């Protein structure tokens, strides 16, 4: 009987666990999930926690009862190291974990595995910019507790505006190499909506602060889509929304350091600037979970398996090459490790071969380019593909991973909220296909114009709310969950 160990119970790890249990659970194989947090979190709705429109309980649920019902072995722990060749005392591959549950906090254990899926998502690297983050001078919405704190600070700012003080709110990214600009965009417009609802919009200056070279880049190099008989760009479309809602923007920015109420930053032209703020929500750059790896003799081999960013190297083409030589085929298909055929990485945990946006550096050599986003839908699809590949290999139906989920062959749906409310809410509903432009297949725009779309309106808000309930229902493994697509 085989054992599959999944590191991480976020969007990708939990999806992999559900499908592996569906495919193998009744056949006596063992599925083990290791994750440090006792709660599952629907991260996209943290935006609404961050403006006080949802509570932590609306976006989370405890994992242990769900896994108990599914028959998955859940260990509340964080992985710290892997021994893909075993060690001096055992031939079997193993992963070392450190418990985080109150009962066993700090204890370590080795778990042997036949297959390992690294789905550890992002490590929020606030340390990359001094002063960034909840331990510094800015807030975040990356976790539900960060979002709760952001909401509290936002209410304080609204109270000051009501008392007659004009306030500057800066929302965006806190480093030149950040990703997830879509989340910063959503938070910007949700904050703008809340401030308008509070009747103090005239007292607020809202500034979107980004590493993107133009609005609407979103880390995917922007999009082209058809609107009323014209091919338009996500840049024009996004700028239109910013103008309509009077949100200012600062582009191509890298924050060097943040002090109380002040951002010191450089722009792509190499100029240094400062920007004062009363409230700042700046997302951190991401890195991998920084797992270590050792060979049988105990020699460290972390650099052979992981990229310097801490993400796991998979079946991608990592050869450094200039932008004009980037190809759709550079992107991984099966997510198997380059070195070990029984180790996989999905979601944010795999190392992308390069950015999607055009790479840019300031004259001072500062890299100011969004990293490629690995959003919910692609993370779920690749997790399912890996689960299916592993199930087939365990059952002897395949000798190598056969399910493909390249980001250059799949699309993504992104519904970015621009304000909550059953009749007054709006959201930008975007689809793109494929996520990574494929200029061989779509020479003019890199993507299919039929499947790359953008639309603003109340319908998007309803969609976002529906997705919130649907994905929490699915993650809880309720009847019919497997019919809900990733």
């Amino acid at each position, binding site marked *: 009987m085989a054992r599959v160990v999944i590191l991480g119970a976020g969007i990708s790890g939990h999806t992999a666990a559900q499908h592996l249990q569906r495919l193998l659970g009744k056949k006596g194989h063992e599925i083990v999930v290791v994750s440090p947090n006792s709660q599952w979190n629907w991260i996209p709705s943290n935006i609404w926690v961050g403006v006080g429109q949802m509570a932590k309980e609306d976006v989370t649920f405890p994992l242990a009862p769900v896994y108990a019902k599914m028959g998955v072995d859940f260990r509340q722990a964080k992985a710290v190291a892997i021994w893909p060749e075993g060690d001096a005392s055992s031939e079997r591959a193993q992963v070392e974990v450190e418990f985080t549950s109150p009962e066993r906090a700090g204890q370590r254990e080795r778990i042997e595995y036949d297959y390992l899926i690294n789905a550890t998502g992002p490590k929020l690297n606030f340390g990359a910019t001094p002063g960034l983050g909840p331990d510094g001078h800015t807030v975040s919405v990356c976790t539900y507790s960060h979002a709760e704190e952001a909401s509290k600070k936002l209410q304080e700012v609204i109270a000051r505006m009501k008392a007659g003080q004009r306030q500057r709110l800066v929302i965006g990214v806190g480093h030149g190499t950040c990703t997830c600009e879509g989340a910063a965009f959503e938070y910007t417009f949700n904050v703008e909506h809340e401030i308008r609802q509070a009747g103090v919009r005239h007292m607020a200056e809202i500034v979107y602060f980004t590493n993107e070279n133009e609005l609407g880049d979103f880390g995917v190099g922007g999009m082209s889509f058809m609107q009323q008989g014209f091919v338009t760009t996500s840049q024009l479309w996004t700028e239109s929304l910013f103008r309509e809602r009077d949100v200012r923007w600062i582009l191509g920015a890298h924050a060097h350091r943040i002090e109380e109420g002040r951002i010191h930053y450089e722009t792509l032209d190499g100029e240094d600037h400062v920007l004062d703020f009363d409230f700042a929500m700046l997302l951190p750059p991401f890195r991998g979970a920084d797992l270590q790896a050792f060979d049988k003799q105990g020699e460290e081999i972390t650099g052979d398996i992981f990229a310097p960013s801490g993400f796991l190297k998979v079946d991608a083409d990592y050869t450094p090459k200039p932008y004009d030589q980037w190809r759709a085929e550079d992107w991984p298909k099966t997510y198997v490790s380059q070195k070990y055929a029984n180790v996989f990485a999905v979601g944010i945990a795999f190392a992308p071969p390069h950015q999607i946006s055009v790479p840019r550096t300031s004259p001072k050599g500062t890299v100011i380019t969004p990293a490629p986003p690995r959003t919910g839908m692609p993370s779920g699809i690749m997790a399912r593909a890996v689960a299916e590949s592993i199930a087939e290999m365990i059952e002897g139906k395949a000798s190598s991973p056969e399910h493909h989920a390249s980001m250059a062959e799949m699309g993504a749906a992104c519904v970015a909220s621009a304000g909550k409310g059953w009749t007054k809410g709006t959201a930008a509903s975007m689809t793109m296909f494929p996520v990574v432009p494929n200029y061989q297949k779509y020479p003019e725009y890199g993507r299919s114009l039929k499947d790359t779309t953008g*639309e603003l309106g109340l319908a998007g808000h309803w969609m976002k709310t529906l997705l919130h309930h649907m994905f929490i229902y699915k993650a809880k493994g309720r009847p019919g969950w497997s019919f809900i697509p990733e």
Partner: protein
Amino acid sequence: MSELSTDPTQSGPVSPAEVPLPASLAPKPSSKTLRQRTSVPLQAYRFAAVSLRMMSMIRKSHH
């Protein structure tokens, strides 16, 4: 905001009193467009249309 923010005697870059609205050729929506974006009957139709479009794209993405 911080009193230092617009102090011209301060050395080094100075935070602007107001971040200017960058130049943009992007069209602003008309009041009709804005009304349509929150019109419940129209948006109910758009909801159905966007859902179908997304489902088609999602089907193509699952191999």
